[in-house]
């Protein structure tokens, strides 16, 4: 089966610009998660979708971040306007059940300059 796909793999944008990251989960996985790893820190949870509904977005850093999952398939994470501290690797993961291991994508490395 195809894994979790994220694109772009890399993005370099200027402060103040907008960037949209996309995640295609494994087909049939209702649960979709976004995480972020900033330089030198551990991976941190951002939010969790069950199908198209946001189950928990307690990890979203502020209202410059907007995640959507229209139709319960792929998801997008938009950062608008981007700030320097938003630089890091953004991971998406999916799972069939909420209490099972998650399959991660390779991540999007975002650099804000």
């Amino acid at each position: 089966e195809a894994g979790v796909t994220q694109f772009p793999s890399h993005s370099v944008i200027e402060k103040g610009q907008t960037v949209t990251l996309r995640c295609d989960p494994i087909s049939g996985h209702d649960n979709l998660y976004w995480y972020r790893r900033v330089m030198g820190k551990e991976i941190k949870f951002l939010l969790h979708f069950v199908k198209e509904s946001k189950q928990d977005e307690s990890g979203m850093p502020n209202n410059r971040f907007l995640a959507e999952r229209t139709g319960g398939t792929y998801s997008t994470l938009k950062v608008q306007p981007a700030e320097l501290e938003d630089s890091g690797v953004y991971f998406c993961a999916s799972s069939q059940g909420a209490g099972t291991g998650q399959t991660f994508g390779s991540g999007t490395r975002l650099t804000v300059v």
Partner: protein
Amino acid sequence: SQKIEQNSEALNIQEGKTATLTCNYTNYSPAYLQWYRQDPGRGPVFLLLIRENEKEKRKERLKVTFDTTLKQSLFHITASQPADSATYLCALRLYNNNDMRFGAGTRLTVKP
């Protein structure tokens, strides 16, 4: 404060030996704990999940223990191989909470 600590940033062992990685946590009540492997430039790969009522789980050369009294999980790789070299992450899933809390990881190097 809440913390997840993995024993060391880096661990070097000789091929064929058993690697033991530690994950300690404070001020958490996890429903279960997971171990992931991460290679450079890739996302974490799920290895094992152990629930709070389980003491031990095995999968091929991997073994995980979970002691909720000590608030510690041990991750063992027996008969280690150079291909086992990677960063290993522990992650806690909390009750009534959707987020997973990750440790910073331990970078394992298995020398031939």
